[in-house]
């Protein structure tokens, strides 16, 4: 398994842990500001950057860079599709002239969920491309 695949597996694990922790907190504390603290767990995604390879200064080769770029693009595509879908759905359900009043924590939660979606899709795409071949 390459370093990039290990990093992708780690990231998926962190996202899964965060999702589980979030719903556990919501059940125990309710979906208010207190439950937002679990998103701090996402900081664990930075751990692979401190790997031995990183400190040795070994860079990505062309295939790794290509896969990394494609995976990031897939993540942003997914994020964009969900964003468009959400905006359209809210518009059609609530009406285009409706006014929404949301608590501030919900805004920050939206950003965190977006980040998790991006990381999850990026990681899955990385794993798929390493197995299937990056030119596929």
């Amino acid at each position: 398994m390459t370093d990039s695949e290990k990093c992708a597996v780690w990231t998926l694990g962190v996202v899964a842990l965060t999702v589980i922790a979030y719903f556990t907190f919501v059940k125990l504390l309710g979906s208010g500001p207190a439950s937002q603290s679990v998103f701090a767990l996402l900081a664990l995604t930075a751990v692979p950057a401190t790997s031995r390879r990183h400190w040795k200064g070994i860079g990505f080769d062309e295939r790794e860079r290509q896969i990394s770029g494609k995976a990031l693009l897939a993540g942003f595509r997914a994020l964009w599709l969900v964003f468009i879908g959400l905006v359209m759905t809210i518009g059609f359900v609530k009406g285009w002239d409706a006014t929404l009043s949301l608590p501030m924590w919900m805004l920050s939660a939206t950003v965190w969920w977006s980040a998790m979606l991006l990381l999850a899709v990026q990681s899955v795409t990385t794993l798929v491309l390493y197995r299937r071949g990056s030119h596929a």
Partner: protein
Amino acid sequence: MPSEKTEIRNHIRRLRFEHGEMTQDDLAKQAGVTRHTIMALEAGKYFPSLLLAFRIARTFGVGVDQVFVYVEVSEPAP
């Protein structure tokens, strides 16, 4: 009507063995890539850039056309 699919095949595995059973790791170091990339190339899972193709060919002391072959594969119509 049969459709034509193009792909790039390579003789890296054969050339490695012809060059004193060179390991994938040795070739990777000389070409400036990881061993996983050499594995992917040999398995036909990755098509290299022109630069990497030239680097690999130079490692073996042969021309690019002796390492990589452009082929058109005819697929029977469904």
